[in-house]
């Protein structure tokens, strides 16, 4: 689905969501309430400027203190890779955006991620992965790194990696593998109205971070949940 399709399905009565330089901001009516939207469209890389534009929009929502939910709609590239971005502290700007989303969520604004295209690496962590619940649409393509780049870094033949990717979800790019890791909670049905599906997610928010449980149940992250629980258990004992 394109962003326009998504917004039409979310807001049948119309909306005030706009896109400028690949950055999505605005809101629309959802079942008598407001749904705020921030996001990235068109496979746009996220740099220092874009991160602060989006974080400013999230802080604006928080100031209103109406507990309105925030949809984080993502079709991005990775973080913008440039000397200027790193010189200006890209790590701080991306972390600031993530912190804004995390604070909004804990302040009563439910945060729902929606990945409908690509996203990768730092841009993915700072946006979609900083929400309470991350949904995806079929055809989305989240990744950490594409396989040819993985081949370059690991010095393994691409053919071997492609073969391994079929049986080992833990390293391979793509939506199915991110679902298996528990990073993506649910894949939505594009044939049904999105506004009902998003309302359903808001009504059924997990009370805490369940991604490691999902990763264990789905087999994409077989041991993380147990290890985290073991460490926490030993820390709490004695």
């Amino acid at each position, binding site marked *: 689905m394109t962003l326009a399709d998504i917004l039409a399905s979310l807001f049948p009565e119309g909306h005030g969501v706009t896109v400028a330089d690949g950055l999505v901001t605005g809101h629309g009516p959802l079942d008598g309430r407001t749904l705020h939207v921030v996001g990235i469209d068109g496979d746009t890389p996220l740099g220092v400027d874009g991160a602060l534009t989006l974080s400013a929009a999230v802080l604006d929502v928080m100031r209103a203190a109406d507990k309105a939910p925030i949809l984080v709609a993502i079709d991005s590239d990775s973080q913008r890779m440039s000397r200027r971005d790193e010189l200006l502290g890209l790590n701080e700007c991306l972390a600031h955006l993530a*912190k804004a989303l995390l604070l909004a969520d804990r302040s009563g604004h439910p945060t729902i991620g929606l990945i409908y295209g690509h996203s990768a690496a730092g841009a993915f962590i700072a946006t979609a992965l900083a929400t309470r619940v991350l949904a995806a649409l079929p055809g989305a393509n989240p990744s950490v790194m594409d396989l040819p780049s993985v081949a370059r870094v690991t010095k393994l033949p691409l053919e071997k990696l492609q073969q391994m990717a079929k049986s*080992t979800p833990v390293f391979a790019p793509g939506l199915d593998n991110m679902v298996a890791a528990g990073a993506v909670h649910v894949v939505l049905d594009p044939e049904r109205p999105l506004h009902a599906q998003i309302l359903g997610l808001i009504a059924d928010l997990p009370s805490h971070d369940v991604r490691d449980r999902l*990763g264990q149940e789905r087999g994409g992250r077989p041991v993380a949940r147990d290890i985290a629980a073991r*460490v926490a258990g030993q820390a709490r004992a004695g």
Partner: protein
Amino acid sequence: MPDVTDPQTLSWYEASARQRVANLLDAGTFEEFVGPAERAMSPHLPLFDLPRAFDDGIVVGRGTLGGKSVLAAAQEGRFMGGAFGEIHGAKLVGLLRAALDVKPAAVLILFDTGGVRLQEANAGETAIAETMRAITDARAAGISVIGLIGGRAGCFGGGGLIAGTCSRLAVSESGRISVSGPEVIETNKGAEEFDSRDRALVWRTMGGKHRRLTGSADAYCEDTVAAFRQAAIDLIETAPRFDLAMLEAEQGRLEARLHRFGACRDATEIWAQLGINDPDAVPAMTDAAFQEIAAGVTEASHDAR
């Protein structure tokens, strides 16, 4: 403890994760969770014919620092570049989640990481997201999360984002913080954009001195475990709150940075605008001389983090 040597002279950069944590905390107080004897090793690395480590490259546990109870995690930058794999990340996540119940004075994260371990990329990336959520949960509960950065692997990729989530950061000159590493930028955008072999450029753009002068880090240490220990003790006392007022202040701080320095091509131009008389002298400056200069830069010290 076997690894205790003289922290006054022990180099943070050269030390192992175990040496760092043992010498950072009060002597003999470190107690490890899910230690090497439990053999919590990566289930994935053998598929790549890669050796595993008994601790998956991270040491987590508790101890005291200046008499206060703390939780601590130390990444080993020499094992797989300190990168986040499934178990490595889960150990940090578990530690941070426990902080809500244990209520330590602080959680210390001794960063030494290239980012996500590509052989376990999805698990590592998700663990980084879980870590950031757990850090903000801990901070909102009033627990300081202090990052210490000066290891050989630096603090790159998702590690840089986690660092940006901490309450306070201490760096040494070697403490490079960045999202895209020099090689990643060069591979994707070419050597004209970033020549990763130009080490002076790397240090100027990502190194501890630049990060301290621009307020990306709150303390600058000489490269000894003792200096990081003192910085950690001091920083715990001054950790900012995690609330809307702080984030508004950080928004203003970062916007001001982009506005003032957005057209600068090199760190030396930024340092000049920060009021440093001889910016070209900064890279070769001694730690003591640099600390004096940094103390005079108003932008370097703030509570907007």
